[in-house]
């Protein structure tokens, strides 16, 4: 039996029901048992005093790289799920660009069993669109889903073959799952190390033009219109992409999109001094692009915040910019960056932010969670949106340390994270680092 938990006196925000007020939340048998005033728990229940804190459905990240199988020196399902919990996430969707890639039942089942063993945040694997992520032949979506996959994607690589993308969208309709695409027109982007702009020109680095993303976004929207399939656009980074999505949504197309914390926080200026921790794909763009993706989060053009959590070994980033790998960690800084960049400046209200980091994410990938409705999963985050802290990569639960945010002052972090009715992270009694 799981010991029931009473979370007392917090500001309870449930974006799924648009409620926001001081209340108690009672969790029993791994479910939300009650939400209301003056709940009295049964004897021996665990009490979490949440006065001054926010109690909300656990955050859900639709886009992480957990590196297992194949790159366990960077991250494992276990360390990634722990990092997620420390960031207030109760569920993450693991991209399939592992080695071997998640293109078969066995690999999907392996990730799920590793996640169960770890017992931290839930991990939902995403299967590949194409076998071996080669962009040639469709993976067996039905098999992948029956093993536990929740979506398909070849993330890390775009689907360049428009015919393949069309058939993927059509075939995915059979199962009602989204096809998540990494939008990058390869022939334009090839060899690029950062955003094509004045900083790349100064640094003498080959740029990736915004057009490389936008052409691909436009094509995917057109194919969604052609097929009626659900296209999910990963990590949108440009003003042009936002405009294309806005138009597609106005037309009623089944298009959803995500943006990362780094794309609403940093510009290509962060690459100055050849800072490899600012190297990502899609690259950090210009101030107008940052402005546009923030606006898109506010008006709902972009549905969710996803981290694109991408662990890399320190010495892989300790090299020439051209040769350094793309990507940064995201799970342990996402909420702080969102509060600091979006909520505190008054752009987005906290309940709306939590909607985009939890409820909306659950909706578009059809995941449980994202709600405090009685009887739903007891996946809860207790957050302190007001606490100021300094990012110290040395304290991360992730195995890797690659972040451009080290030393940055942020507002807002997770205090307690509960998954399946159990506390998996408590800042007051932090668990040791896993390996």
């Amino acid at each position: 039996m799981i010991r029931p938990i009473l979370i007392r006196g917090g500001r309870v925000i449930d974006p799924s029901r648009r409620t926001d007020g001081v209340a108690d939340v009672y969790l029993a048998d791994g479910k939300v048992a009650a939400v209301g005033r003056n709940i009295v728990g049964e004897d021996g229940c665990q009490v979490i005093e949440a006065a001054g804190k926010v109690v909300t459905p656990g955050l859900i990240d639709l886009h992480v790289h957990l590196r297992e199988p194949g790159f366990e020196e960077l991250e494992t399902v276990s360390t990634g799920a722990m990092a997620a919990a420390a960031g207030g996430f109760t569920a993450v969707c693991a991209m399939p660009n592992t080695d071997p890639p998640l293109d078969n039942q066995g690999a999907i089942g392996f990730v799920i069993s590793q996640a169960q063993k770890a017992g931290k945040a839930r991990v939902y694997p995403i299967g590949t669109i194409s076998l071996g992520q080669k962009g040639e032949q469709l993976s067996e979506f039905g098999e992948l889903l029956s093993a536990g996959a929740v979506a398909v994607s070849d993330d890390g690589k775009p689907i360049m073959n428009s015919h393949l993308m069309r058939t993927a969208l059509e075939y995915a309709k059979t199962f009602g799952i989204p096809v998540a695409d990494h939008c990058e027109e390869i022939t334009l982007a090839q060899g690029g190390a950062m955003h094509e702009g004045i900083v790349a020109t100064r640094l003498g680095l080959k740029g990736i033009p915004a057009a490389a993303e936008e052409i691909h976004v436009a094509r995917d929207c057109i194919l969604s219109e052609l097929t009626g399939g659900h296209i999910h656009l990963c990590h949108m980074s440009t003003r042009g992409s936002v405009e294309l999505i806005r138009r597609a949504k106005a037309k009623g197309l089944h298009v959803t999109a995500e943006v990362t914390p780094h794309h609403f926080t940093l510009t290509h200026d962060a690459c100055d001094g050849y800072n490899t921790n600012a190297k990502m794909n899609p690259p950090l763009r210009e101030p107008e692009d940052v402005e546009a993706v923030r606006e898109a989060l506010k008006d709902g053009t972009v549905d969710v915040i996803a981290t694109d959590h991408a662990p890399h070994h320190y010495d892989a980033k300790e090299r020439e910019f051209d040769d350094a790998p793309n990507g940064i960690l995201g799970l342990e800084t996402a909420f702080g960056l969102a509060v600091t960049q979006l909520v505190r400046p008054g752009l987005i209200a906290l309940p709306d932010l939590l909607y985009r980091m939890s409820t909306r994410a659950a909706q578009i990938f059809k995941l449980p969670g994202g709600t405090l409705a009685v009887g739903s999963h007891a996946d809860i985050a207790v957050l302190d949106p007001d606490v100021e802290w300094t990012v110290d990569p040395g304290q991360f639960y992730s195995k890797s340390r690659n972040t451009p945010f080290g030393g940055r002052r942020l507002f807002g972090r997770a205090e307690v994270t509960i998954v399946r009715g159990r506390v998996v992270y408590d800042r007051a009694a932090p668990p040791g680092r896993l390996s």
Partner: protein
Amino acid sequence: MSPATLGKDLVGLETLSAAQILLLLDTAERFKEVSERPIKKVPALRGKTIVNLFFEASTRTRISFEFAEKRLSADTVNVASSGSSVSKGETLVDTARNLEAMRIDMVVIRHHASGSAEFLGNRIRSNVINAGDGKHEHPTQGLLDLLTLRDRFGKLEGLKVAICGDVTHSRVARSNIWGLKKLGAEVAVCGPPSLVPREIGQLGVEVMTRIEDAIAWADALNVLRLQLERMTAGFIPSLREYNRVFGVTRERLARAPKDLVIMHPGPMNRGVEIDSDVADGEHSVILPQVTNGVAVRMAALYLLAGGSPDWQHQGGSE
């Protein structure tokens, strides 16, 4: 800060002040004479050890640096890594650490990756001189171009210099733009738009797409080398067509309102970006550029040596 200070490394001209660039040029002016002496050698860097670390083949720049080092009495070692990618072997970090352990005073680095000189400079105590990093900068080439123009015109302020050709892939273009702008020259870049970065105007330069316009406007042309692989990469259709549309030819120069000084960083593709009779003509300063190259590099070595590491104070354990 004393005016005679460059800092630890010479990575590019972007980060130097006008005063620092002038210090380099004025010091180079003195070193010109050393190369004319019966014994072309002074003891200024006696006892200093310098590694010429060339990850990219470059006979001309390496020899120029080597002459500069030897004329200052430094001890030099040449390390040439022919492999185009360090990922095949030792990483640049490891190379840096090994040099550090050997107590090298200075490293001259040529590397295919932009930013590699700064990367190295940030990781070792030795002075680092950038001898060309990817498409980023080639500061000593920029300085020798400045010195050659100053020799010819007496000053750089108000001078109109057009940098012609493949600007996108050129570290020489970037160093020239920074240096010329800081010393008050007017700069234009001219080339096919497929070889000129869209944002280059933000650096304060004119952008021209017709070589005739550049010739009509400029006091001096710096003609960039066209890498032959630009053709196969789809930036231009053919060398023949490039010469026809963008080549610096005698016929085009004959229509200029005044005689233009012609520079080229070398090695030249005669008959492509520049015609032989222009390269060998009376207004070409291509060979004085080479002569000035040694003086400029002596100046850089001499001035940086002032900020050398003092190994004895580090209590080295190796």
